[in-house]
């Protein structure tokens, strides 16, 4: 329960724009190569990193690339050469990176990226949702979602630590505008602390000509399945590596992300009859709604996956086991089926002994503001969920305005 940790902001915190704070966290991780391209709402990260390099505060090679595609591609070259490489992007930019990013996973290159989550065109929108991150779900990249600026910084550091240990790239997600452009207090880790937490990268293979290797060979059907399985195994190994990392992180930095091995963060979930599951910044607003219910004596709680890949399935089975109903709030949608997030949570519980009814609520798309009242209405709605409800009833778009649809929403 993050909010009880600190009653007063600390003097060591600075009130800083989210993107600047993340850039300073990256600086503390001391990457050899940074390669990134501007895109709203991530641009602040690139700008701040450029400024830090220009001022001599960050000693990285900063490649001012021509596109996100080549941001990812240059990071792949740098990482293969043995460098610690960082990039940042958002939305369309992440899509443009998608092709090389999948290969970074297959080639086991631990590039870390900050992703300022934003919707995907069309229509064009610059505002936050999770469509971009979910569209990269199957690539083999580790994925974390931050609730606030502090976590956005800390997840980059944890990202490097875990990515370099399991040899997978990592996407550290934080919501566009809501977290990229907010000014709020956060601790900026200093380099001494970080060097204690994050050892220099020690890759197994590099492109050193004194010990030549061939990277990026093609695999025949006889070997490809195994190479893909190795990504899966590395993902599963990452669960434990992440758990160790958050413990050490707590010891070094004093911030505690160790609940459920760092996979989940919960708020009044233990005795809750009705649980709201949400990822990213929306969880902050959910906390306030939970507080209001608790004041009225109602047992409502929240569960927030901090890590999305590897998926915290066992943890969710445990955290949701005793709920009477579960409301999944999600800022993405897989057209033709349902929210991928909700679908995965349902899948995780399929083998559980206790299977509470789960309803998914698609909201907060492309920056649509989510008010506490919106969430309270969802809680009221999910209370009526039954184990026997059909698929159609299990999905809801509470913020949809049917009056805007041609012919109305009469189907």
């Amino acid at each position: 329960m993050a909010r009880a940790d600190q009653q007063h902001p600390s003097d060591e915190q600075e009130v800083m724009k989210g993107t600047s704070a993340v850039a300073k966290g990256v600086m503390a991780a001391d990457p050899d190569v940074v390669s990134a391209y501007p895109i709203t709402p991530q641009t602040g990260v690139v700008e701040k990193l450029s400024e830090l390099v220009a001022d001599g505060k960050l000693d990285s090679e900063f490649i001012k690339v021509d596109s996100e595609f080549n941001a990812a591609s240059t990071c792949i070259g740098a990482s293969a050469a043995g460098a610690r490489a960082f990039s940042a992007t958002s939305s369309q930019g992440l899509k443009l990176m998608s092709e090389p990013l999948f290969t970074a996973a297959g080639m086991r290159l631990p590039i870390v990226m900050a992703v300022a989550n934003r919707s995907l065109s069309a229509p064009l929108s610059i505002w936050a949702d999770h469509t971009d991150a979910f569209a990269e779900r199957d690539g083999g990249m580790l994925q974390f979602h931050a609730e606030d600026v502090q976590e956005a910084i800390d997840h980059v550091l944890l990202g490097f630590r875990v990515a370099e240990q399991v040899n997978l790239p990592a996407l550290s997600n934080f919501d566009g505008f809501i977290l990229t452009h907010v000014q709020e207090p956060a601790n900026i880790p200093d380099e001494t602390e970080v060097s204690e937490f994050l050892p220099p990268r020690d890759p197994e293979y590099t492109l050193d000509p004194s010990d030549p290797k061939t990277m990026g060979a093609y695999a025949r059907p006889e070997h490809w399945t195994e190479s893909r399985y190795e990504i899966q195994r590395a993902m599963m190994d990452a669960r434990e590596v992440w758990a160790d990392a958050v413990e050490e992180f707590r010891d070094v930095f004093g911030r505690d992300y160790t609940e459920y091995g760092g996979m989940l963060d919960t708020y009044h979930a233990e005795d809750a009859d009705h649980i709201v599951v949400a990822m990213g910044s929306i969880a902050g607003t959910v906390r306030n709604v939970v507080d209001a219910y608790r004041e009225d004596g109602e047992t409502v709680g929240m569960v927030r996956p901090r890590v999305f890949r590897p998926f915290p399935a066992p943890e969710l089975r445990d955290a949701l086991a005793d709920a009477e109903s579960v409301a999944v709030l999600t800022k993405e949608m897989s057209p033709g089926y349902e929210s991928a997030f909700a679908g995965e949570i349902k899948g995780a519980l399929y083998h559980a002994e206790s299977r509470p009814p789960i309803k998914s609520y698609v909201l907060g798309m492309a920056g649509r503001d989510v008010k506490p009242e919106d969430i309270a209405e969802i809680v009221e709605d999910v209370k009526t969920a039954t184990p026997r409800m059909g698929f159609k009833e299990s999905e809801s778009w509470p913020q949809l305005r049917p009056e805007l649809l041609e012919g109305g929403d009469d189907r």
Partner: protein
Amino acid sequence: MSDTQDPYENLKITTGVVAEPNTSRTNETGSWREYKPVVDPDTCIGCGQCETYCPDQAAKPVEGEDFYAFDLDYCKGCGICADVCPTDAIEMVREVK
């Protein structure tokens, strides 16, 4: 696959599928050949044009001799060597296997 045994059947996958250098030599491409270069040692002047232009590094000087010949483990029988040979010392003959 053909009836030949897959030499990599039990191969371990390295992290990131990284391969060792200079390992293609295990793949003997000589089996692809239909025509075989045959050198007339008396006509060969040892100029090395065949070596220069062989895409498979199969044309080499013969140890202790002053003429060139062909590594039949790798020669694919393209015939470039015969074409570039200034003295027509190389003849492509249909190989009877």
